[in-house]
Every structure is written in structure tokens, then in C-alpha cells.
């Protein structure tokens, strides 16, 4: 059966750590960093369950700063 595999790329320097993408992801793929911060001093979003991502783009749609690019690939 065809399956959608997704991947996200977060512009971590643009990210403000608002956490809205983390909340929007139905599959808990994303999380904010615990200690690591970007140059602005924000914890930023990153993939913690990358394998699970379906590329639904919910995270990117709700991101107020347009930090997330989403890729999707159909696999057999």
C-alpha cells in the first residue's frame, strides 16, 4: 500500500520557540529543544520522531513565522 513519508526542515534561527507547531503535529514528531538555544536565545523546534512524519504540513501551516518547510514522498 502506498504510504506518505514526510520530512520537515526548521529554520532554527528564524524559530521563536512558540511551541505551536509542536501542539499542531498530530503525531508528536516535533519538540522544542531542552537546553539548546538559537542566536536569539529561543529554544527551537526540531524533529524527535522523524520516522513518523507523514508530511501533512499542519506544523508549517500554523507556524506564525514561516519557519518550516515540509517535504512529502509516496512510498510503496
Amino acid at each position, binding site marked *: 500500500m502506498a504510504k506518505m*513519508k*514526510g*520530512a520537515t*526542515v526548521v*529554520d532554527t534561527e*528564524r524559530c*521563536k*520557540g*512558540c*511551541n*505551536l507547531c509542536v*501542539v*499542531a503535529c498530530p503525531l508528536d514528531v516535533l519538540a522544542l529543544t531542552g537546553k539548546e538555544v538559537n542566536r*536569539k536565545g*529561543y529554544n527551537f523546534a526540531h*524533529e524527535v520522531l*522523524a520516522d513518523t512524519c507523514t*508530511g501533512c*504540513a*499542519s506544523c*508549517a*501551516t*500554523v*507556524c*506564525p*513565522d*514561516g*519557519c*518550516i*518547510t*515540509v*517535504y*512529502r*514522498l509516496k*512510498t510503496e
Partner: protein
Amino acid sequence: MTREEIIEKGQVVYKKPALLNDTPMHYCPGCSHGVVHKLVAEVIEEMGMTDKTVAISPVGCAVFAYKYIDVDWQEAAHGRAPALASAVKRLWPDRLVFTYQGDGDLACIGTAETIHALNRAENITIIFINNAIYGMTGGQMAPTTLLGMKTATCPYGREVSLHGYPLKMTEIAATLDGTCYVTRQSVHSVAAINRAKKAIRKAFEYSMQGKGSNLVEIVSTCNSGWKMSPEKANKWMEENMFEFYHLGDLKDTGAVK
């Protein structure tokens, strides 16, 4: 299948609209303004109006909107964006002209300009970011602040006996003969964001078809002013704002006119 392979062989299904440039936006983390900026940029791009748009920015947190969306802009005096938009559109009818205003700007100091521009059936769109507070100046009460809602200038909550009732500008706009499309949207979820984008597109199209004035209210959060996390602010908005500010179209005469 590795992440790298998906990125290399896969399709881009979402990226920041090209019209929204790389300048970091000054908005607080999680602010609704950013989401609406993205939608406006996407719609202008999709309509092919990049070189034919004049936007008017307000006084309020969105005062610097012109730094982020790469179209032509004018920056209006506080509340006067609809008057400036009227002038621009009359001088340049083939331009897509819209204002982008907060509730303090539109529903307080600019109430008269807003109502009259809408009722003159100026072929413009007003994007109205209603976060029920003066965000930029530190979270003071606005005419749109809900009863019971706490702000810096009503620390015990807005009270009818002291502050009167919250103002529903969008309902007023719907009663005006000059308006074509009047709608209230929000951007707290993927579904809501998709609906808001369609509404902005419709309003922009009607304005270009000369069908009159259009108002798209976006019920928004100001998590800093409300003193909540962005996530909590969205929840609070769902539980409190939508009860008073009902979402949906209030008027749409564009399809028949």
C-alpha cells in the same frame, strides 16, 4: 527511507510564501499577526498581484508589516488606513488595495474612517486583526475587550458600569449598504487558517471586481498582552472570544451583484 532521501526525492508541500521575505518579524512568539501575514502573502502571490498591490499598514503591532511582505506599502496615521486606502484605490483603480489594522486602530481611533470608507463602497479590503487589546502599547483595554477580561487598564476585568460594552465592528459593517463581503475568521487551527485564507482571497477578488468594500475580521490572540502562552491563548480565544465574536460570513453580496 531516510529523511535526506525524502527531502531530495520528495515534493515540497509547504514552504514560507516567497512574498514574505527573510527579515525576522518583530512579533512576539506565537502571535496571530504572523499567520495572517503568511496568508496575505500567499493570496497576493496566487492572484498574481505582486506588482499590483498597495497595502496600508496601521499604527499598532503591525506598523512594520511593510518590512515583511514585499509589495508596495503606505503607512497611515493611527486609524486612518481606510481613508488612505480610499485615496490610493481611487487614484489607481487597477491596484489591489487593502488595509491591515488592529482593533485599537480600527475600532477606536479609526472608527469613523472605517465605517465611512466601508459605506462609501470603496473597492478595498480591510483586514481586521481583533485581539481585543492594544498589543503594541502594553496591553490596555480596547473597545473590543470582552466583559470580564483583564487588561492593564481594567485590572479587575472590563465592567459594563465603568467601561461600557465591547464593540462588534464587523456586525456594524454588515449593516452598511457599501459593504460587499463581511466575514469573521480566525487562525488558531489548520482548518481555521484554510478558511481564513479563502475569505481573504474572496475579499481581494471582490475588491478587484469593483463590488464594493470588504471586511475580513480575524479573531486573534495577543499572548503577551493576555499574559498567556501561545497555546493557552489559542484555547482561551476558543473558549471566550468565539462565544461573543461568532465566526463565519455575515454578508456576501458579491456572487449576485
